[in-house]
């Protein structure tokens, strides 16, 4: 069992993708076309980009349930700001506003010691409410045509969202694995008291984690809004659970201390493949919801198994 889990940890998600791929290739003659595959990956990037942030949060021993609300907030601000201050400034300002939400999350969690689940859940509700208020309950169309390039344009034949994901991947990968800051995130997720005793600035590290989660959520908001060309305060309902599914399925340990960004990328693509397959057989959206739930349960199950077997292994010093 330990061996199996070790193998799963390394290549489990690839095997899932290969199986799904074979299945889809047989089921649909269109699947093995470049456009289809790029389309599936693009669909996957939405969750993956925010997954990067979520990987940091969960690795630090925290959680963020406010990401879907932040997507909506970004969307509303973009639609209001673009006509007034131009596209670049509007994007920067919307992202900064979102990052401030993350800062508030981090501040409440660290300074007042509130549970991250409750904090970010409350924040999600507040942000949703605020977004609806600001947009006066409407959806706000964006008429500046150029803005659509971000979400729908291509560079060297590859859709922009994939490029954005790659850039963010490199950023977050270096951050988590190659910087002292990333080391500190893992240390805090592993054992927060030990991190404190070792003189780490726990408060700063954690606040920055939540800022980064909101940052990724707001990037997602930019892409979605640019595709829809409309500011939607209630954009991306239920999106948070998808992000969490991608994170856990990707191999990030729910108990903290261990993050897997590459896994998140492939988990996102895998879930996108499931969606594609479900669309193929023409089933309803309800089944998509159901399938994400099932995949999350499966991922949690494996995570739980891993933890349990690790504990047994620990007792006699088996290397894992």
């Amino acid at each position: 069992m330990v061996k199996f889990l070790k193998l799963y940890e390394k290549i489990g998600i690839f095997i899932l993708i290969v199986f799904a791929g074979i299945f889809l290739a047989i089921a649909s003659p269109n699947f093995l076309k470049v456009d289809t595959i790029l389309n599936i990956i693009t669909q996957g990037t939405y969750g993956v980009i925010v997954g990067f942030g979520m990987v940091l949060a969960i690795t630090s021993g925290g959680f963020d349930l406010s990401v879907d609300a932040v997507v909506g907030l970004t969307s509303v601000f973009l639609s209001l700001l673009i006509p007034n201050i131009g596209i670049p400034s509007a994007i920067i300002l919307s992202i900064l506003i979102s990052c401030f939400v993350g800062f508030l999350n981090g501040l409440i969690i660290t300074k007042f010691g509130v549970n991250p689940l409750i904090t970010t859940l409350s924040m999600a509700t507040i942000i949703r409410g605020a977004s609806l208020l600001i947009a006066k309950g409407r959806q706000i169309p964006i008429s500046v045509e150029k803005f659509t390039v971000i979400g729908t344009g291509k560079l060297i034949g590859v859709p922009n969202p994939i490029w954005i994901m790659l850039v963010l991947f490199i950023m977050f990968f270096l951050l988590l694995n190659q910087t002292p800051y990333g080391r500190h995130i893992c240390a805090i997720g592993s054992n927060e008291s030990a991190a404190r005793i070792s003189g780490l600035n726990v408060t700063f590290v954690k606040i920055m984690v939540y800022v980064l989660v909101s940052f990724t959520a707001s990037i997602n908001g930019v892409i979605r809004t640019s595709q829809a060309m409309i500011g939607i305060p209630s954009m991306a309902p239920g999106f948070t659970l998808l992000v969490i599914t991608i994170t856990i399925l990707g191999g990030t340990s729910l108990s903290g201390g261990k993050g897997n960004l590459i896994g998140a990328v492939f988990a996102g693509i895998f879930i996108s493949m499931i969606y594609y397959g479900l669309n193929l057989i023409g089933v309803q959206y309800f089944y998509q919801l159901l399938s994400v739930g099932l995949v999350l349960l499966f991922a949690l199950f494996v995570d739980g198994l891993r933890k349990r077997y690790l504990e047994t292994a620990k007792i006699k010093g088996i290397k894992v």
Partner: protein
Amino acid sequence: MAEIPEDNVLLKMTGITKIFPGVTALKNVDFEVKYGEVHALVGENGAGKSTLIKILGGLYRPDGGEMLFEGKKVFFSDTHQAQLYKIAVIYQEFNLIPDLSVAENIFVGREPKTPGRLFINWRKLNAEAKKILDMLDINLDPRKFVSDLSVAERQMVEIAKALSLDARLIIMDEPTATLTEKEVVKLFEIINELKKQQVSIIYISHRLEEAFKLSERITVLRDGEKIGTKNTSQANQDEIVSMMVGKVVKDYFAGEKISESKKEALLEVKNYTIADQVYDINFKLYRGEILGFAGVLGSGIHHMLRSIYGAAPRTKGEIFFNDKKVLIKNTNDAIKLGIGFVTEDRKGEGILYDMSVMQNLTIIVIKALTFLKGMFVKPANEKKVFAQASKDLDIKFADLNQRIIFLSGGNQQKVIIGRTLISNCKVLILLEPTRGIDVGAKAEIHRIMRELANKGISIILSSSELPELVNLTDRCLVLYKGKMVAEFNRQNMDEEALVAAQIGQKINQA
């Protein structure tokens, strides 16, 4: 109670084998316990003691061998079955529920009910609990919450719980590891009381003296095998130690004492007060000296040392470092000054579970092992620092990316000491650095401390093991209920005097 059979054997395990993937934890082990016997089980970390008791407690199923309990062949598939057979295990990590009262914990799942069995009969619950506590001569209010109890009191609740289950066999895993001398005495009284009631006890301890004081027989395990069982009255400590480590070790504790300190104060603490903990403490720490702190629970030593390190607040007091007044607001300030701290709670605030051996060692200094103005970690630098430290401290590991939890307790402790040392500290505060680690690793940590002191590093050592203080320290300060009550130096320090001072007795100082 069942009839006591002629051979007087309560538990007989034969040929017990337990295999974990890749390692055999127990090889064909025979073990028996007689009625009313205290049977000590000793061995270094990894010898298989925990595996054996976990089999007895129903946590693990053996892969081979059989067990006879009260003459009947038994097989435990879970902990509940072990309980049915009246076997109680008191693990190092207690299994009490902190938010319930003492009485509720003792009778958890078996609370006496009011007629109709709908509600708990609180009066009866508390009365029954009191009865058991009285039987053990434990002075504890059954209505008190477990979260408010000291470690020693929690342990007594565990024992009371075992007794309430009418346990025939109680297994105690390192029961004295976190107790003060006085509490140990109390525990021993309780054990003797249990013995009188024909309860058998398997006693696991790193402290050989205790095994000798308490037990009828001693069984030694090493590397999953039984080395032998001796009648305590016919055995001596050196013999048992050499059975444990597999080679002849003579007087594993003593070492040559370090050279005279140079009487140059590196750290000075003045009028240090923490409300409800310590009052008006003054002391100096000289360069290259090992300064001991002794005190029983409630002495406030740990609080004070944590506070000096910046990990806890203080009420008033001043700290001088190199004759300069310094303000330590948090642990980072202390580290910057060159004060290192090794916690007594290795699990709780020492090791970083999910990280590798190397990452555990370098966490404090990681910012310095970088390139591009501190942006990225430079793996070569990190490996170099790790290689040096692991060599200096003789840390044994399979590979540097191995997770720290797979090292033995002693090696984990070395990593944590190393973590602090490579941050270039000049003052090293050690709280119980040898708690819960095996004999060999203990001696090595003592050696490391001596070497460090010889290099000019000043060490503050707080330990509940008095021989450790007597053998290692240049001076020893004793705190009692938050006040400094005695200071010993090499000439007048001995265990008896320390014991007396720790429990607040007036002593004649030379």
